[in-house]
């Protein structure tokens, strides 16, 4: 009898071992679609890294790592040549070639969400099956950054009409489309089943090219859990193995828990306030802007309000980004702030309005309230209105308030992107300064950013972007608060440390579960 039991146990053990490991994962959102080009969002990029594969990808220390492109070289000012990996198969079984890369790039330029990022890309030149030249219309230093967005799609699979007679390659945002419900990428996982907003199951792709990867996850069950408390509870009760993000109020609880492995790092999303110089003439005065920055204890907000889950900032891009300037000093100094207000002739202060979202950034409403009380100390009486993000952006665009909150993450993981959207002079035609509700405008800064955007020499470009950050700092062009920290937590034995990164797309294909 005992022997039989032992045998049965051994069999069960072997069976589970052979099946590989299942990772039960809870994130705050699931991908909006199965079509990688339908929307540019964090959830979509996380998905795309599982099911598709980029030409190259970011490493943890912000360098590039070959994926479907084995190596690449700049041939001239306008061209970068990519040498593609041989013997890669799509999930449909079709072989991967340069034609797929060209097809994908063409589709990216049709996508409403991505075309803006690919405006300076011309049609690529296919040299042979495994070599492709990516050509830009003007010198463009971010070809590699953008190559991390090129996830080749199976051009044969997505060509033609589906059984409803609709084109398979259509990019459709709100209705059925073939690409919204079917996938064929080269990635480590295939989509086994998907119930939008409820559950998604991925299976490891047996023919995956990367045999060197130590990753041993054979199945991922992804559940979106938006409610913070529920997500933490699911991890603590063992219903899931891996959660992200960790709600700030649970940081301490999870990091001190022996059975939980938590990883955090400074993210690249900067939280700022913009001071509208057009709407509120007082803010056109440099001294007033400097006073506002000096009155706000952003390190205090990061430490107390965010409980250490944010990194105080004096500039837009975080450390590791090209524009990062070492040693920009914190400016909080209440006495100096009062002095500056006096010098500007506003000793008695003035009134101003402020808007902020209440469900977009971590603790957004509380941060706004804290800033209101800090500004009251230098006589600026702020009336604050907060609202859900669904209503916020229209108000933001209409510039209804004198002080407006905005957080920004650079899609290109590059410093210039922040300035382009947040600081450059608003210009309807070029689309620059689209989110510059401060109406800050400095020709010198614009010129530097524009120059950096066509500078292929990395060192020169770095100097230009650092110059931009310095000008923005001197000019007190906006109020920087902090970068939100990123966070992930998993059960012990799930080694998430090596696979998470500042871009917040975990490379689960390489995840090792002991």
């Amino acid at each position, binding site marked *: 009898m005992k022997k039989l039991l032992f045998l049965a146990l051994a069999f069960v053990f072997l069976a589970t071992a052979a099946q590989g490991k299942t990772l039960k994962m809870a994130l705050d959102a699931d991908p909006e679609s199965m079509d990688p080009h339908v*929307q540019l969002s964090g959830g979509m990029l996380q998905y795309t890294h599982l099911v598709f594969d980029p030409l190259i990808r970011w490493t943890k220390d912000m360098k590039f790592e070959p994926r479907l492109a084995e190596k690449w070289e700049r041939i001239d000012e306008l061209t970068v040549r990519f040498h593609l990996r041989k013997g890669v198969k799509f999930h449909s079984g079709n072989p991967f070639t340069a034609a797929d890369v060209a097809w994908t790039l063409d589709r990216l330029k049709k996508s409403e969400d991505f075309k803006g990022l690919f405006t300076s890309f011309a049609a690529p030149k296919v040299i042979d099956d495994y070599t492709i030249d990516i050509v830009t219309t003007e010198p463009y230093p971010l070809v590699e950054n953008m190559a991390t967005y090129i996830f080749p799609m199976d051009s044969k699979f997505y060509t033609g009409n589906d059984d409803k007679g609709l084109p398979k390659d259509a990019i459709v945002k709100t209705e059925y489309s073939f690409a919204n419900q079917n996938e064929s990428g080269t990635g480590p996982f295939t989509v086994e089943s998907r119930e939008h907003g409820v559950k998604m199951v991925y299976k490891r792709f047996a023919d995956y090219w990367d045999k060197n990867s130590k990753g041993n996850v054979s199945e991922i069950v992804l559940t979106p859990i938006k409610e913070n408390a*529920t997500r933490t509870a699911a991890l603590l009760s063992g219903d899931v193995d891996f959660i992200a993000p960790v709600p700030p109020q649970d940081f301490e609880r999870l990091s001190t828990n022996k059975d939980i492995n938590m990883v955090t790092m400074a993210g690249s999303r900067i939280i700022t306030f913009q001071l509208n110089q057009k709407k509120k003439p007082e803010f056109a005065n440099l001294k007033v802007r400097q006073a506002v920055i000096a009155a706000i204890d952003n390190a205090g907000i990061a430490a107390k309000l965010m409980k250490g889950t944010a990194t105080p900032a004096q500039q837009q891009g975080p450390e590791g980004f090209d524009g990062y300037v070492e040693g920009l000093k914190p400016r909080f100094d209440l006495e100096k702030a009062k002095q500056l207000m006096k010098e500007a002739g506003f000793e008695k202060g003035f009134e101003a309005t402020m808007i902020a979202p209440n469900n977009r950034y971590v603790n957004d409403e509380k941060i706004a309230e804290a800033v209101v009380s800090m500004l009251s100390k230098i006589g600026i009486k702020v009336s604050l209105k907060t609202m859900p993000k*669904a209503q916020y952006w229209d108000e933001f665009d209409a510039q209804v308030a004198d002080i407006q909150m905005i957080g920004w993450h650079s899609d290109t993981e590059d410093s210039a992107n922040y300035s382009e959207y947040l600081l450059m002079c608003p210009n309807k035609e070029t689309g620059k300064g689209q989110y510059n509700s401060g109406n800050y405008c400095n020709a010198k800064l614009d010129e530097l950013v524009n120059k950096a955007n066509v500078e292929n020499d990395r060192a020169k470009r770095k100097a230009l972007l650092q110059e931009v950050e310095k000008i923005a700092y001197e000019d007190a062009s906006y109020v920087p608060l902090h970068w939100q920290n990123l966070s992930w937590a998993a059960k012990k034995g799930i080694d998430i440390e090596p696979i998470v990164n500042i871009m917040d797309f975990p490379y689960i294909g390489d995840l090792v579960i002991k």
Partner: protein
Amino acid sequence: MFAFIVRRVLQAIVVMLIISFIGFALKQNVGDPVRELTGISVSAAERDAIREKLGLNDPFLVQYGRFLKGAVLEGNIGQSFFYKKPAMEVIVSKAPATLELVLICSVLIVVLSIPMGIYSAIYPKRLLSRLIMGFSTIGVSVPIFLIAILLIYVFSIKLGWLPSYGRGETVNVWGWESGLLTVDGLKHILLPATALTALMLPLFVRLIRSEMMEVLETEYVKFAWAKGLPRVRIWFVHAFKNTLLPVITVGGVQIGTMIAFTILTETVFQWGGLGFLFLEAVERADTSLLVAYLIFVGVIFVVVNTVVDIIYGLVNPMVRITGRK
């Protein structure tokens, strides 16, 4: 009789028109769905083009007219932007979860509130009665999400007995995704059902108790005691039967409230039903789905009320006559 039915049905249609109009007016103020459908760096012009394509730039009445036409002629009450499917399909697929939750709660409430209410009415001074009343006070005053989080903390995190979120395994029975037929599904429903019951139960216990106490004081019950009838007969047949009428009336109204309260329960427990759907739709500014949800719930209430009215009219001609004036 025929005229009465026609009048009721016409009234129902008018009510539905008003609901759809209000829903549609609300939709204009919830926010911009296109923001939720695009990355933040997408240009304003591009966004406007999408809005144009979705018909969101048209004047309010044009949009409303188009909606009514689709609803009446094709039975199409809109397209969910987030789910990329017809709104009706989405709502119907989420309904079973909520209905099962409400069903289990109703059963629990009936099974628990009747004996508790009767007991505390018959023996109001006993310790157990006082305990029941004490707990019901707590139940009424503590917010449901607190109860829910407490339940998760005790039964999922500390004891590890029950799952903390989701519906678990479901079985498809003639198109109805049921979680009540699997052990896993039943385990999942236990905590949310308990939370919801904890909120609704006190009301019914108190209602049954006070009604019953009143009835026990009436002349005919006293007369029954005087006749020397057995206790059980007096309590259950004479007294309780008369307690039931007001309880059923209130209960009917409370089903509506219950559906509203599932919104909070479903959010905390990640229960994939209608309440969860509604809240998410608000957050995502999935405006078409919101309107569809309001219409769907409206139709249920209106149909139930109309049918009840008609049945009342059939059973009790007095109602018809007073209605005529």
